[in-house]
């Protein structure tokens, strides 16, 4: 370290000396010596970069370990050509100063770029499968809590949905569509070779309120060097039964031999709710309540509505501007034998909802040493601790979550009421059962503390230069503690009189992998790369959960559960699974033109019943490097052209353990009384409807791809067509209630996804002003091709599963406007009970009620009039990044979007419900149908409620297409010379804005809302989720 700080400025200082004192001297000679430093855009020196003078091949030099160079050039004007493998070549004109601070940007299209594949690496040119790479620079652009968020819009075929704006919340990732229904659809995550636990359920301790934390949030995004996403069967088959949903390979930063680097990065940002909903104010709402009462022949409530003014802005009371900050210190380096990288970071994010936050402390050490000539040993140890507070959003039991409550609460009521316990207004006084959202957010505490350690050691032994053996042992261990406490004065705790819970989960997965790698070239024509291995993995966790009710004293909360008057039975559980796998892959290349890959993995899993434990997952691929053929040599425009094809079989084993066993558990309890004497009884019963005929699901995937680079890699294009067919889908399906259960796992049929991934990168201008663009486009079509159900399966009264339709198909009534006259209503098809002859006069359809289309044309509106209304699946998604560099200034603009998907805005069941029980959208409420102000969109106010309450129709289904300015970052790099004066090798300052603007017609908080999180079948539903945030930040990164 010490050495480096001295060495580096020394080179620069000498350059300065020349600048200040020697300039005139050199200018008079025929030649002059120029000096400079070549580094990556992130400031890392690039040793071995070549610097040549254009038009004079003889004058050339290479940079030293620290990236410095000097070169003697002829007098007069000159142009330098600076190139480095994997980076965009730059031409730099004589700046008259003879000192250069040259930055090269990475060129992902460069074919010699090495990408990580499962159990090895490969040059991009040698790939036969479909692999997308995302580099650290791209990941850094958007401030994220968790790396899964950073993938959004970055790679074709990868759809990332940010389900919630809660700090650290889970995302939902779909690689090439939804290929499973019940078993998970989330990809497999592999960090530096370690297959980690990424199932939120495995980590959960049961005490968290609101959305679960992403298991990936414990990994510091700042530690990541690159992310590779394996998409097709050729790439993922090496992961066998866990490959069907794609694989995300994460490589963390390693040290490089050469000088040591110390770097410090920090940013500070402020988040705010991107889009508040416009609701009625107190005066408007009071008028609505009175009107609703009058229409139902009841007495109005409010004497003089206009006097009530604006009242309480419940959203304003619940939301806040919240800061976030990140600090990271890292150092890395190495020599011929040892490489190391060490980092520590602290991340602190407050949520935009009161009392929610996320803090992470993360440490990582990567070290590798050549112990003997033939033996290398290495270790990775990463520790992180998350401390996060959550609030209950989404749907809730007893009362809804805080966001829904804030939207619906009576604006006439104040937040605080000093006359009652706790000092808060207790509940909505207009009928809809809602607790005070401010009280609940502030007083209902819910804390998660997650500690996680990821360790991995390996030994690699080279028998010969062709054959090597690697064995590794890794452990991913975690402890999660979740505590929650609701004091006794909240609406939610009215029945429990105060409630507390404390859950602890500890668990681990260990993985032992043993692989032999062989690579050789025969007769200069035949190249063979092979890997074969054997792995063992085991997962185990145990959970303990205690809870209690009735806290006379609110002060100690969940920290003293014993203070409760009514402690409940504690519960605990254990679960584990294990896997044994054999894997092999052979790459064979003929003449550097024809590439063949055969891959296979045998997985044995404890999750399946005896006799079904083992599965074999093979794949094969072929690629043809057309550009290497002789006939292409004259086509200079084409730098590279490769055609690829692959086919394989993959599995999915993301089901909980013990599904094949019929379990009995304690369930029922109750009391018998004899006068004042009470006897408690408990019972045991089967916990599920066991389907003994369950089979496992498999996916077959075909991929046809093209890689094309033009004009010396200035334009590079990758396109893939794929087809994924999944068989014997498992679905937790509704079954007749005569079974005693609502649902069970059934092999309900087959599903098919096919689509196109396109990725286009261009280098638009080079030189002083450099402009690059990256565009990706994903299109996926999903179809249920077979379903073993005689009747439609309808989920949440809105989503249809039927042969021939896609997952996420909305099914319901067509809203056809508003009846304008009583006569029109009387003469039209209406819901049963709304007909003029109805025995209940209050429910008869009248002017101002909603009209529905009589699809079945039978003169009445009933279940037969439901029809397909649209899909939650986008027609396509895309990401578009432009980066501009001019001198020391970089600007990057990242757009991302989705087109053609619909959203069931379940909030509208209430927000468009004019019974006066709860607040409603301002536009809708003000423009509700009245005889003076008849409209065709919103119905009349009616205190008694219309019979169409809860009916799912196009009235609440909205277009959720969007285009989002996801991020704009403007950064300024100090020149090396200026930086060195500060004792630094690199200093970058930036301002950035995320989620700056969203173009959408969607009326809710966010068109990405996804209330049911990672659920496969319940998609496109928005119900009171944590809103997305807009972030403005300032950042700095410095290296020494």
């Amino acid at each position, binding site marked *: 370290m010490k050495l480096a700080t001295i060495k580096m400025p020394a080179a620069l200082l000498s350059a300065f000396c020349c600048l200040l004192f020697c300039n005139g001297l050199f200018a008079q000679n025929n030649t002059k010596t120029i000096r400079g430093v070549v580094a990556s855009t992130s400031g890392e020196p690039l040793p071995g970069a070549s610097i040549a003078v254009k038009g004079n091949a003889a004058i050339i030099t290479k940079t030293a370990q620290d990236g410095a160079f000097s070169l003697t050039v002829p007098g007069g004007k000159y142009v330098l050509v600076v190139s480095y493998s994997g980076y965009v070549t730059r031409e730099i004109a004589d700046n008259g100063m003879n000192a250069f601070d040259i930055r090269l940007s990475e060129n992902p299209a460069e074919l010699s770029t090495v990408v990580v594949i499962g159990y090895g690496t490969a040059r991009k040119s040698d790939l036969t499968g479909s692999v997308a790479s995302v580099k650290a620079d791209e990941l850094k652009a958007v401030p994220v809590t968790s790396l899964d968020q950073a993938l959004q819009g970055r790679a074709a075929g990868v759809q990332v949905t940010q389900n919630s704006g809660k700090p650290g919340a889970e995302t939902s990732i779909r690689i090439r569509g939804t290929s499973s229904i019940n078993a998970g659809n989330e990809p497999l995550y592999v960090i530096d070779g370690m297959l980690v636990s990424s199932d939120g359920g495995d980590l959960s301790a049961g005490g968290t309120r609101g959305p679960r934390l992403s298991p990936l949030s414990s990994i510091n995004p700042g530690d990541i060097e690159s992310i590779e996403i394996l998409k097709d069967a050729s790439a993922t088959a090496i992961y066998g039964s866990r490959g069907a949903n794609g694989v995300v390979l994460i490589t963390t930063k390693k040290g490089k031999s050469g000088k040591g680097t110390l770097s410090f990065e920090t940013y500070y940002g402020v988040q705010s709710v991107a889009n508040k909903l416009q609701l009625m104010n107190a005066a408007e709402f009071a008028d609505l309540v009175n009107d609703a009462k009058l229409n139902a022949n009841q007495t109005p409530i409010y004497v003089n509505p206009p006097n009530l003014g604006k009242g309480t802005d419940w959203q304003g009371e619940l939301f806040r501007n919240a800061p976030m900050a990140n600090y990271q210190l890292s150092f890395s380096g190495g020599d011929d034998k040892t490489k190391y990288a060490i980092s520590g970071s602290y991340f602190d994010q407050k949520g935009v909802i009161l009392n929610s936050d996320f803090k992470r402390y993360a440490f990582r050490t990567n070290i590798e040493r050549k112990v003997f000539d033939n033996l290398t040993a290495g270790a990775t140890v990463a520790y992180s601790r998350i401390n996060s507070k959550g609030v209950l959003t989404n749907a809730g039991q007893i009362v809804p979550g805080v966001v829904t409550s804030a939207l619906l609460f009576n604006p006439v009521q104040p937040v605080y009421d000093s006359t009652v316990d706790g000092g808060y207004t207790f509940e909505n006084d207009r009928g809809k059962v809602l607790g005070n959202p401010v009280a609940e957010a502030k007083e209902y505490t819910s804390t998660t503390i997650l500690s996680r350690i990821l360790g991995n050691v390996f030994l690699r032994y080279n028998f010969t230069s062709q054959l090597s053996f690697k064995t590794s042992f890794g452990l991913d261990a975690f402890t999660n503690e979740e505590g929650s406490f609701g004091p006794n004065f909240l609406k939610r705790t009215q029945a429990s009189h105060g409630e507390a819970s404390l859950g602890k989960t500890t668990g681990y997965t260990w993985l032992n992998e043993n692989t032999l790698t062989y690579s050789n070239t025969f007769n200069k024509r035949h190249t063979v790369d092979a890997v074969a291995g054997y792995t063992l993995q085991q997962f185990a966790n145990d959970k303990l959960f205690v809870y209690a009710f009735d806290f006379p004293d609110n002060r100690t909360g969940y920290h003293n559960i014993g203070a409760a008057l009514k402690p409940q039975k504690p519960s605990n559980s*254990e679960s584990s699974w294990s896997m044994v796998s054999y894997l092999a892959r052979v790459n064979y290349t003929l003449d550097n033109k024809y590439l063949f890959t055969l891959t296979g993995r045998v997985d044995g899993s404890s999750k399946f019943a005896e006799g079904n434990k083992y599965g074999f997952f093979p794949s094969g691929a072929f690629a043809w490097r057309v550009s290497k053929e002789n006939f292409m040599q004259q086509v200079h425009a084409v730098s590279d052209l490769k055609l690829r094809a692959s086919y394989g079989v993959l599995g999915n084993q993301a089901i909980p353990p013990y599904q094949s066993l019929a379990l009995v558990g304690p369930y029922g309890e109750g009391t018998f009384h004899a006068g004042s004497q009470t006897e408690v009884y408990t019972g045991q019963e089967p916990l599920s409807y066991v389907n003994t005929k369950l089979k496992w699901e498999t996916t077959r995937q075909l991929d046809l791809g093209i890689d094309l680079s033009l004009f010396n890699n200035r334009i590079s294009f990758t396109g893939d067509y794929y087809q994924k067919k999944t068989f014997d889908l498992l679905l937790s399906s509704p079954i007749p209630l005569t079974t005693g259960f609502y649902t069970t796992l059934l092999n309900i049929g087959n599903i098919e996804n096919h689509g196109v991934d396109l990725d286009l990168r261009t280098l638009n201008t080079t030189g002083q002003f450099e402009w690059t663009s990256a565009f990706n486009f994903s299109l996926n079509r999903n179809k249920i091709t077979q379903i073993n159900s005689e009747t439609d399966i309808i989920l949440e009264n809105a989503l249809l599963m039927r042969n021939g339709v896609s997952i996420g198909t909305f099914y319901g009534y067509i809203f056809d406007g508003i009846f304008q006259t009583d006569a029109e209503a009387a003469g039209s098809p209406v819901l049963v009970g709304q007909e003029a002859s109805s025995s209940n006069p209050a429910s008869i359809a009248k002017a101002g009620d909603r009209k529905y289309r009589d699809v079945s044309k039978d003169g009445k509106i009933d279940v037969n009039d439901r029809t397909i209304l649209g899909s939650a699946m986008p027609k396509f998604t895309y990401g578009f990044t432009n980066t501009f560099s001019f001198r020391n200034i970089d600007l990057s603009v990242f757009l991302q979007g989705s087109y053609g998907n619909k959203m069931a805005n379940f909030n509208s069941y209430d927000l468009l419900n004019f019974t006066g029980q709860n607040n409603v959208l301002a536009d809708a409420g003000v423009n509700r149908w009245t005889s003076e102000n008849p409209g065709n969109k919103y119905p009349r106010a009616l205190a008694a409620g219309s019979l169409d309450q809860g009916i799912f129709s196009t009235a609440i289904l909205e277009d959720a297409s969007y285009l989002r300015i996801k991020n704009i970052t403007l950064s300024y790099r100090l020149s090396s010379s200026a930086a060195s004066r500060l004792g630094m090798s690199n200093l970058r300052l930036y301002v950035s804005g995320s989620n700056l603007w969203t173009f959408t017609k969607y009326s809710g908080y966010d068109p990405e809302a996804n209330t049911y999180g990672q659920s496969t079948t319940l998609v496109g539903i928005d119900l009171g989720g944590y809103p997305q945030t807009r972030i403005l930040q300032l950042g700095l990164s410095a290296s020494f």
Partner: protein
Amino acid sequence: MKYNSIHLIIAATLCTGIFSSCKKFLEEDPKSQVTITNYYKTEADATSAVNSIYAYLNSISTGTTAGVYHSTFWVAMGLASDELLNNQVGTPQFDQLATFTYTSQNSGLEEIWAMHYKTIIIANIAIARIPGIAMNELLKNRLMGEARFLRALMYFNMVRMFGSIPLLVEENNPLTPPPATTDAIYAQIISDLDFAAANLPDSYDPGNGRGRATNGAANALLAKVYLTQKQWDKAATAAKKVIDFNRYGLWDDFADVFKLSSRNGKEAIFSVGFGDAGGAIIFWEAGQFQVRLLPLELSVEGVKNSQGWQIPTEYLYNQYDADDRRRAVTFITEINDPATGSKTIRPYIQKYWDRAAEPTGNESSNDFPVLRYADVLLMYAEANNELGQTAIAEEYINKVRKRARFNGTDYLPTVPDYAGLNKDQMRDAIIKERSLEFVAEGQRWFDLARTNTLIEKVPLAKPGVTPQSKNYLFPIPQREIDLNNSLEQNTGY
């Protein structure tokens, strides 16, 4: 390190890996749960299998937490009659029941269907498994009797509400069972109840089973089954059997019937217990009577969370003689605000509220009366009246009537006995007396349906609401029709 030793280590690693027993490594052994193959083995298992049937009658631990008698069922039977009105916002299922506009998509009816079948399935498991357990034969027969009684109770509710429905009596049933005839269902009910009557004990000791099904309960339910089937002589015989047990009686004062101290007392033949046993079990095991029925206005008297969701019809309130003790006990019409004094409100139902024992209302630990002795007396009267024994009918209806005139100290002449009625008048008197006696006990729709008076009676209490003949059965839930093609919807829905 020598190459040889490295080779040795590598070889050893590979060998131990590949040749160690993978079979054991992949075996599942859930330590924290019991599988069905090693359950139902002991006497305790048998008892807990039957306990879990009872556990579905009160509250449960999933979804709405509502078991069969939690609320929806008895509220629905009151709303779909001349007894109750719905005052709970945001519950279209109840509005529809109260106004006879319900359809097959009514969520309340779906819950009733789901909970009854769940209870039946749990009972079927007990009935299938218990005979194979080596245990005390007397206890075995008792537990079988309890399970069969409870199954009969569920089927009896269901067959009356929905008519021809699947009759499942085995542990394993087809996924989409066809419906059975109502005759077949009644035959099964009677067979279950005959077995229960023969094998259940007279009674249980307090704290040691008091509250479980007895032979008295089986006979009382048999009386009701036969009454519904218009088998008057068998109904009379079964009811008389219960009367002749001499174990049951009426509390002298109607006000004592719903005291906590009277739970499973002399008038209770079969009840469902609610309450959290002082916090020993989860709070949602508490009853809903106070939350649901007491008026919001009571909050000024320190009562918490009284919502007044379901309220009696004014018509019902007006059917009582002014001095009828049952009117004062059943309804609350006056609020005493410490600040402003007393005020009169419309009638709300307060009979389940033991104010001295549970002064702040909210969770109730009261029992829900499924069968009580007054019901047996009125059933006996009804059966005899239909058999032409009007004098016996008069004798027994007046036993119930007599108590109604007791105001706690005196028997008031202003609530007179019935006298000199002919058969039709007596029939009317009995159906009216039942409405006065069993308010909010989940009886009214059944009584009106059994006596074919739904269409005639409801409009008297709810002007403009006109039930039709289809309303003598409820629609089978649409979810069930959708998932089971062998079912047929009831006529008119």
